[in-house]
């Protein structure tokens, strides 16, 4: 593990008058998989959107490898190295799978070997046969894979994954977990927003728990699994 890749300090954001994030702070080390846990409405997706610039933070700092990217426009943040995979996947419905990947293509900022469609089809073998299929005509699980692959084509330094297993069949969820583990072996830095502790515990190194817009727990995932009190207090419905 290297130094700190992403440092979030006292992030505030909301929609109109509704304040959702009230001072979110956490760090993400290079090569680490950090899971952002919390109940429905705790602010997981909002955190991700605020990091990505889709929602303008009202206060706080976001340092990506030292540079403060808070308040930048989404395309600049993406170029700086944050890669976002939205919860709703947002695959371009009328573009083929191959074209979807092409839209994401961007040369890596550092000297790493770039992702290519071939390497991504090796990571998600299901997609290899669907290259010419329009985005609207593949299954939800396949769309999730396309969404991740499309973002990886931009060679992000930090991957923001918003509930990649949501609404998918258990067998596809397993594939997602394996893909994340494969990325981790390649040294990827991942921030995962997730409701399911079971899924998180398979892939994450560390966890932070959001509750009403603040971080209320921060530690190793194993420590969280051992801490029944914290789980009952912050995660159980």
């Amino acid at each position, binding site marked *: 593990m290297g130094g700190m890749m992403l440092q979030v300090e006292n992030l505030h954001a909301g929609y109109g008058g509704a304040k959702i994030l009230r001072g979110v702070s956490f760090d993400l080390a290079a090569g680490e998989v950090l899971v952002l846990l919390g109940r429905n409405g705790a602010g997981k997706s909002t955190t991700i959107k605020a990091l990505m610039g889709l929602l303008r933070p009202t206060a706080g700092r976001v340092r990506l490898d030292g540079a403060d990217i808070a308040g930048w426009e989404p395309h600049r943040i993406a170029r700086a190295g944050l890669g976002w995979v939205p919860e709703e996947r947002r695959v371009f419905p*009328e573009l083929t799978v191959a074209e979807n990947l*092409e839209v994401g293509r961007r040369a890596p900022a550092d000297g790493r070997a770039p992702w290519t469609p071939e390497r991504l089809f090796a990571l998600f073998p299901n997609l290899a046969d669907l290259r010419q299929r329009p985005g609207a005509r593949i299954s939800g699980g396949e769309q999730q894979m396309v969404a991740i692959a499309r973002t990886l084509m931009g060679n992000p330094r930090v991957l923001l994954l918003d509930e990649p297993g949501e609404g998918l069949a258990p067998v596809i969820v397993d594939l997602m977990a394996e893909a994340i583990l494969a990325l981790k072996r390649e040294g990827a830095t991942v921030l995962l927003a997730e409701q399911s502790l079971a899924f998180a515990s398979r892939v994450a190194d560390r966890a932070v728990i959001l509750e009403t817009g603040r971080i209320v727990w921060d530690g190793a995932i194993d420590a969280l699994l051992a801490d029944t009190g914290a789980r009952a207090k912050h995660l159980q419905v």
Partner: protein
Amino acid sequence: MDLIFLQLLTGLAGASTLFLVAAGLTVIFGVTRVVNFSHGSLYMLGAFIAWSLLSRLPREPEYFVLGVLGAAVATAAIGAVLEVVLLRRIYRAPELLQLLATFGVVLVVQDVALWIWGAVDLSLSRPRWLRGAVEIAGLRFPFYDLVLIVVGPAVLGGLLLLFHRTRWGLLVRAATQDRDMVAALGVDQRVLFTSVFALGAGLAGLGGALALPQGSANLNMDLSVIAEAFVVVVVGGMGSLGGAFLAALLIGVLQAFGIALVPKITLVLVFLVMAAVLVVRPHGLLGKPQAMARGEVEALAPIRQAGPALQLLGAVALVLAILAPFVAGPYLLSVLTEAAVAVLFAASLHVMMGPGGMASFGHAAWFGVGAYAAAFAAKGLGAEMAVGLLLAPFAAGGLALLVGAFVVRMSGVYLAMLTLAFAQIAWAVAFQWVEVTGGDNGVLGVWPDSWAADKPTMYWLALLLCVGGALVLRRALFAPFGFALRATRDSALRAEAIGLDAHRLRLAAFVLAGAGAGLSGAVFAYAKGSVFPTYMAIPHSVDALVMVLLGGVQTMAGPVVGAVTFTVLQSWLLMGDFWRIKLGLLIIALVLAFPTGIAGAAAAAWDRWRGRAA
């Protein structure tokens, strides 16, 4: 046989330039979701610039090509500037405001073109090679028609290659489907949007330049081509290039044969074809249902009943209005009469726009139908004024029922474009059907009965009918009908789920709005003593929109405030030379500064003030 062939050829040639304009419009709409009203102006600029270039260049074919391409590039550059200066600021604004702002550009460009090139039609003296004919299978085909016929498919092919074989095209197609996602993948939308707009503008400019040798560059081409381009784009399916091509062929050929066979009803024919296509395929020949663009649904503040303070203010204003003839001179009185007419005209548009959620760009059609109905009653039947005043709302409402039956199926920009197209056709009928309407000379001598002949009486009558009409409309909006209408606007699906018939409600609002505008038109006809086709022209429809916008769409007092303000503005500020540029800049400034209108801004300020006081 020869004639049919030649006519077909003319049609196909016309279809090519029409396709170029429509393709630009549809490409711009696809990515930016803006219906660019000023697209016709870019076409016009293309023709003028081409004239300036070609009349100076040598008359050889290679210089002709150079001049035409130069005009297209110059128009593209103008489009890029337009996008950066104006369009960029209104991408998130409601559709109606985008249409209005770009109409402001239409007005500005008209005066700029008038200033640069003058009011005279500029035609190109065509070199010999351009006038020649080619002999194929014993038939002589005009050479330039053949050139145009080749250009259309060539440009279509080029565009398809551009969109499907280049990275830029891929990004444009992706942005058409989800522009925010494209940005999140690291693409600078501004560069993409500006380049798309420049491409669309360049296509319009190319169309204008290519149309020049067969016609002339003149100040009327902008509005006539935009109405046709709207029809083509709607018939073809918004955002579909192939659809635009097919529709342009259909409309172009139809027009060519129409002009040869039944010149008077060509435009009506076009409208009927459009109606037929849309009944069978509501999204056009090759169009798909519009996906709801992300993040653009905004909740509208509910319309409130006026509080006691505002009601008192209204009553005072009404008393002042009634007393006005005792102090006002004849000129002021005629301005006030116009203001009273404008109040009903704007209030009737407001019914469908605000609570109905249907922005019409052709509201002047109903005003004009009412005015012509009154003229017909007075001159054709020799009837009393009462007959004309009674006939007008029924004539306008009846026609609105007919047109509305399929127009109200559409929503958003489709509806705006269809109402505009219909109004343009109504205008053309009034303009061309000289035997009945007197054409451009209008119908003169539509005078009120002798008892209402003096100015104050006519003013009081106008006040009674127009303010009374506006109050009736207001009453309807606070009746269960009004609530149901607003429910339908906010969510047609939910409204239908609780048993409301969305289609009938929208149609009722459409007819009500048409009837109201018809009455205002009849009052206007008697007050002025004459009726002209300009009553139905696009600028008059836009006047109504500006009034409502000026006042604010989501307030009841809005149209009244807007109508009076606009009439006063028009009478003093917007007279004389270059009134278009003034009005155009006013509209643009309004859209940028007060997207909720004067009354809307005042209501918000009032709420803030009360919130602080409480």
